[in-house]
């Protein structure tokens, strides 16, 4: 096993990897940008090295600096997390060249499946169906307009190097093409340093279902269940669950088989995810491979009992899958009960899910039976504009889907984040919606029901809310007031309303 692992990431996923390393007894090396000095991943790693200013392009994305820190600290492996350098084939090769183990697939596997266009060719070869679309990137807006007419609208523009909905635009009519093309390629350039786009037919009413695979260096590959990821806003997943409530047992079997065939064809090693679209007739199309750990990996962990990050480390260290999984490869553990994940974003669902950066004043995380929080948020943490606004993940498990949902509702109510706006209340609204409850939602669910969801999220006991706001305001006035010496204690049980007279501007 490795002695020291460098984690080329930040936020909750860096903490997640540190936790896994601690549990094996591997030393950890954090890298950080100037504004991340006080972050949890810096405090919890065994060593920490500054790699540059806040913008990721000048710090977390600078491959040479990362390699240099690995050498300086004596790290024998690098875990890339997700995002940043995780799907950069050249970086994987660069690690290999420097005799540092990259915890993920080799560069050539990434190129075969991580590149969306190349992935289509592989799929065609092994006869896995794909969505009608191009195998080469677009060369101009004109070509985009012409192909749009050919596939028939709506079509989807996607960044070649994209992920998480960045650099992606749905185009409904030819008139929208020019502006969509420009925004997508500009986003792609600033996020991935690669503005190449390609186009595919937009499947109407699709479900986004993905399969988690693991491959070892001996060439064994297993699929350990699927995840349903169709609750999306702005083309980004916000809720995932496993197993999918939508697909049939027959479809599940086909998806898992296809995932294994694809991974074997690419000689894929380590953890990866095959993304599929499934339409209402249970027809499925391979979309792309994510050649890395996914944000939503915890739901698979909770239903399989397999620690995927631990598995990644052990695979990279050359251990074989049957030992890691602790079960025959023909029957890996999966679908023990049901798990759900809600991604907690610092954003304002009321205003188009616009990010809400700022300082966290107070956090109270839920806990208790079968509740898991993967987070890097702490009191006084600064949610910066430089990085992703996803600040935590809340995961619950239950023997049935119903129990997992009820537990999630309970956990969401316990969760308090003060200081920035979050989508906690929006998750509650989604969970309360009958379409979600019945497991019938597709990727258009949020957009279609946005107004209903907002209304659900703002309902409540008006009288109690008014009393609370009044007492809060009176208390603030009391604390601010120079008169009452008791005003300094915010924990006093004095009757706050006795002080009402002191407050100006509220009397009627």
């Amino acid at each position, binding site marked *: 096993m490795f002695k020291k692992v460098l984690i080329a990431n930040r936020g909750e996923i860096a903490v997640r990897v540190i936790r896994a390393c601690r549990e094996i007894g591997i030393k950890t090396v954090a890298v950080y940008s100037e504004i991340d000095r006080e972050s949890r991943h810096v405090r919890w790693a065994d060593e920490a090295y500054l790699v540059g200013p806040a913008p990721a392009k000048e710090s977390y994305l600078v491959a040479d600096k990362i390699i240099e820190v690995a050498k300086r600290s004596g790290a024998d492996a690098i875990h890339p997390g997700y995002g940043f350098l995780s799907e950069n084939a050249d970086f994987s090769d660069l690690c290999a060249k420097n005799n540092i183990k990259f915890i993920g697939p080799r560069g050539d596997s990434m190129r075969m499946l991580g590149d969306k266009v190349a992935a289509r060719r592989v799929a065609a070869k092994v006869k896995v169906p794909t969505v009608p679309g191009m195998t080469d990137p677009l060369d101009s807006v004109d070509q985009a307009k012409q192909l749009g007419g050919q596939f028939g609208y709506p079509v989807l523009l996607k960044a070649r190097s994209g992920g998480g909905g960045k650099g992606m635009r749905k185009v409904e009519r030819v008139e929208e093409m020019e502006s969509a093309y420009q925004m997508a390629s500009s986003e792609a350039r600033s996020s991935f340093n690669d503005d190449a786009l390609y186009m595919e037919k937009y499947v109407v009413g699709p479900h986004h279902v993905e399969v988690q695979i693991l491959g070892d260096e001996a060439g064994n590959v297993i699929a350990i269940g699927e995840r349903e990821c169709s609750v999306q806003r702005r083309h980004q997943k916000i809720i995932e669950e496993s197993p999918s409530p939508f697909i049939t047992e027959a479809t599940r079997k086909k998806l898992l088989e296809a995932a294994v065939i694809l991974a074997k064809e690419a000689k894929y090693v380590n953890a990866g995810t095959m993304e599929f679209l499934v339409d209402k007739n249970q027809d499925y199309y391979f979309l792309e491979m994510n050649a890395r750990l996914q944000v939503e990996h915890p739901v698979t962990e909770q239903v399989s009992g397999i620690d995927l990050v631990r598995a990644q480390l052990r695979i990279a260290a050359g251990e074989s899958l049957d030992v890691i999984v602790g079960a025959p490869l023909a029957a890996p553990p999966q679908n023990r009960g049901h798990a759900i994940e809600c991604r907690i974003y610092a954003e304002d669902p009321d*205003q*188009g899910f616009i990010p809400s950066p700022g300082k966290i004043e*107070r956090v109270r995380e839920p806990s208790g039976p079968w509740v898991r929080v993967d987070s890097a948020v702490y009191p006084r943490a600064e949610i910066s504009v430089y990085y992703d606004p996803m600040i935590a993940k809340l995961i619950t498990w239950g023997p049935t889907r119903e129990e997992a949902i009820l537990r999630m509702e309970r956990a969401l109510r316990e969760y308090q984040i*003060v200081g920035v706006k979050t989508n906690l*209340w929006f998750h509650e609204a989604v969970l309360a919606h009958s379409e979600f409850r019945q497991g019938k939602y597709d990727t258009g669910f949020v957009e279609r029901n946005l107004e209903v969801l907002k209304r659900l999220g703002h309902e409540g006991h008006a009288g109690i809310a008014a009393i609370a706001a*009044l007492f809060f305001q009176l208390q603030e006035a009391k604390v601010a007031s120079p008169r009452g010496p008791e005003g300094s204690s915010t924990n006093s049980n004095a009757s706050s309303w006795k002080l009402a*007279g002191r407050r100006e501007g*509220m009397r009627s």
Partner: protein
Amino acid sequence: MKYHAAVAGQSIELELGSDGAVFLNDKSHRVECRILETGLLSLLVDDHSYEIVVRRELKGGKPTKNGFVVELAGHLIPVRFEEPGQKGAAGVKEEEGSGTIESPMPGRIVTIKVSLGQEVKLGEGIMVVEAMKMENELTSSKSGKVKEIKVKVGEAVEAGQELMVIE
């Protein structure tokens, strides 16, 4: 002493009595409030227990005077107290868009889609701001003419910074 609040569009009258009584639209309730930490309240209202997070409503990154956001059992409820003399009317209706477009978050101006003097419609896209790796389109809060453009493409902006004035 009466207070008037607009709660999610509903008008509520509050009055504080003695011995922990609170009149809610003239109906009396026994209320006991404990403030546990700043913004974290425990209310007992007629033996019913509520744990509540209250914060001031923000406009352009700054706290408003009489607006609050109450988090109660997973719901986000806006509460606005009315200024004296405004009884019954204020607060219930949302303030009309002033025509001044402010940046909702810190970021960088990617595109300015309109030019000085141009006519725009309510809800029309006028600007794209990049923040937190996403491009966010800002829309006009009223119909009118572009009177002033206060930023340039590429410029970094703060939350609440004025970007454009529509008249």
